[in-house]
């Protein structure tokens, strides 16, 4: 056997070796930026030099052929430099303004929509789903592809009141994070336990400790050590599944999709906000999830029409009030919207501030 190679624990590499030379030259010396058109940014440095960035959407799960095509474009227009964004869009930078129209044309011709800057609907951030995760209630890349097909015009234009960040998560644990609209799988039935396997593969104390509502207890089933779930307490979060796969939470019929709105990370204007539940029970309808698209598009169109310039979705709803939100979106308001989790009273109305 050949000897094993010791890894070089090099850590995170230095970005400057990969950056477009104009960015290295003007590092930390930018004075301002503007957006000549949707999908294009112009950053101007103290030296007077301007860098144009053209931003395009990708499918995130990239095959090597697509990456090589993006590289060809970067070689042809950007001296071989390329950058990706936190939300898996791709950015091409050049100092030569005259190249911008051809670059946009090339990207569009090759099927990469140009946009996602300014007040548009950005690319949907997503997790792994059926392609690779071990507890997904749905696919991720597929949901996002289907939705972006519907929202591509809002990606390519800048007609929203403010940026709209959409996230998806394939379970309630919500790796996808906060979003102006968050589309998350919601399990609606407690885990189904395969008792024959529990003793062999589950570290039972760890599973019991993982449950947020202490619904899991040790039990003897058919003379073998196993677990049982108090189904009245269970919130169907799925947290028991990773340490104990025989506690199957995914269900092809009862795992539904829920929609949450108004989350934001930034401290811009208002403080950061969590997203809030507005719709649930939508079917996990692969391959195009039309019921989800319908609700998302409805919420977006109401926001687009009604919000003031620069109001993020959560800020707009705070101004108009939740009664008006439910009225405008025509979504039903149910007992499930009323928070009864830890600290939930903070979400109730303790005032005579009423909207009619």
């Amino acid at each position, binding site marked *: 056997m050949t000897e*094993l*190679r010791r*890894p070089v*624990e090099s*850590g*995170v590499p*230095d*970005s400057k*070796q*990969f950056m477009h030379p104009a*960015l290295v030259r003007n*590092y930390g010396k930018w004075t*301002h930026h503007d957006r000549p058109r949707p999908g294009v940014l112009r950053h101007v440095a103290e030296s007077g030099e301007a860098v144009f960035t053209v931003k395009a959407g*990708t499918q995130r*799960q*990239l*095959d*090597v*052929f*697509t*990456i090589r095509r993006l*590289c060809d474009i970067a*070689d042809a227009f950007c001296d*071989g*430099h*390329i*950058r*990706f964004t*936190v939300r*898996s869009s791709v950015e091409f930078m050049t100092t030569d303004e005259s190249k911008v129209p051809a670059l946009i044309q090339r990207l569009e011709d090759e099927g990469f*929509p140009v946009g996602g800057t300014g007040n548009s609907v950005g690319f949907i*951030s997503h997790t792994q789903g*059926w392609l*690779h995760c*071990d507890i*997904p209630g749905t696919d991720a890349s597929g949901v996002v*592809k289907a939705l972006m*097909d519907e929202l*591509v015009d809002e990606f390519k234009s800048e007609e929203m009141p403010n940026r709209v960040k959409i996230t998806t998560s394939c379970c*309630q644990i*919500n790796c*996808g*994070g*906060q979003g102006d609209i968050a589309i998350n799988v919601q399990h609606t039935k407690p885990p189904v336990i395969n008792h024959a396997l529990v003793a062999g593969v589950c570290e039972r104390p*760890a599973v019991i400790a993982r449950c947020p509502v202490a619904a899991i207890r040790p039990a003897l089933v058919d003379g073998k050590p196993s677990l049982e779930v108090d189904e009245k307490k269970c919130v169907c979060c799925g*947290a028991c599944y990773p340490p104990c*796969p025989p506690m199957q939470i995914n269900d092809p*019929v009862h*795992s539904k999709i829920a929609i949450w709105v108004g989350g934001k*990370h*930034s*401290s*811009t*204007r208002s403080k*950061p906000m969590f997203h809030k539940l507005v719709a649930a029970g939508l079917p996990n309808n*692969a*391959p*195009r999830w039309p019921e989800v698209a319908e609700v998302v598009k409805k919420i977006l169109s109401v926001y687009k029409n009604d919000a*003031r310039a*620069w109001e993020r979705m959560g800020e707009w709803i705070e101004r108009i009030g939740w009664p008006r939100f439910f009225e405008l979106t025509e979504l039903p308001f149910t007992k499930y919207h009323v928070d009864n989790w830890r600290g939930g009273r903070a979400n109730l109305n303790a005032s005579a501030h009423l909207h009619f």
Partner: protein
Amino acid sequence: MSKKMPPTPMLDQLESGPWPSFVTGLKRLAEVEGKAHSGIMKSLLGQLEHSYQTRKGYWKGGTVGVFGYGAGVIPRFSEVADQYPESSEFHTLRIMPAPGFFYDTKTLRQMCDIWEEHGSGLIALHGQSGDIMFQGCRTEQVQAAWDKINEMGFDMGGAGAGVRTAASCVGPARCEQACYDTLSAHRAIINDFTDDIHRPSLPYKMKFKFSGCANDCANATQRADVAILGTWKDDMQVDQAEVQAKVKQLGRKEFINQVIRMCPTQALGLNDDDTLDVDNKSCVRCMHCINVCTKALKPGKEKGICILVGGKRTLKIGDLMGTVVVPFMKLETEEDYEKLVQLAHDMLDFFADNALEHERTGEMIERIGLVNYLDALGLDLDVNMINQPRTNSYIRTDGWEEEARKWAERKTNNAAE
């Protein structure tokens, strides 16, 4: 002889429409003759179609790693390997990219070549934590693929109960709003923790994220145990002539609507001559007016960072926002960086010693109280850490005089500085 393409009637429906389709990419990888990935991808397409038909996932975990490391490879074994044997092992290598996700095409092409030879040909740029995810590798190819990636100068990212891969905004590389060097801070902190990334031994995960200003483009506030955000202390910089130009461009009414009225603390007013009146004492550095008036307004000159600790998503006690623990710290000199790295270390050590199994930093702070956390880290108390003082009266205040004296002393010391 190559295996046949599996029928994929549901996935095929994801090939239409204007957005780029990952299915088309998968098919392309499957259809190429004579490459290792073609068999893997045909099999994977079969399994994925099966998931679409049955609305269930079929991956389970296991243990696969590389020599010398205890994390970074995410093992995936198929539960339907009898039907789709060639993708029965489909592991992911999480690799840390350069801060800000910058590449040159030589590097990307080299990565593609490696992954074409040893893996499935499918790469996610990037995972939600920021890793380059080389997805789909057979167990016996993992070490060989890793060796080549490592030889290129890239290192394995985090997984499990350790320090995770960090993320940073584009920062000073291309943003005039950056109040500190997000890319350097990212490298300084994370490269000091390689051991805690590669050999996880914490109670649970620990994430750092770096955003250059309150716009928080790296989504740090709610997605990192330690969020480092840029801010400033002195007055914002105003170019009044550019303000007047912006008023002219938008019109008075729209300028008032879009800038003045949207300031969260009513720190702005429009003067009669269309210049801007800024009450800097009321400004909370939220970035809104600067975002709208990119030419006219800028952060101040005394720049630095603010640190929030404890943000996380749902599991286990529900979502938690990060809390300010350091309202302002300069980050310019080498000593400033050393101080920050030391603080990150202290945060990690305290977490390692005091968090319960599977508890995140935010949950630990909720359990022990912010004041105890500050005490342990030797951080000064600051009024910026709270939204409002306590409202609940169940508290013993017998140390009041002593605490008031400490506060007065600190005020005098700060004034003397």
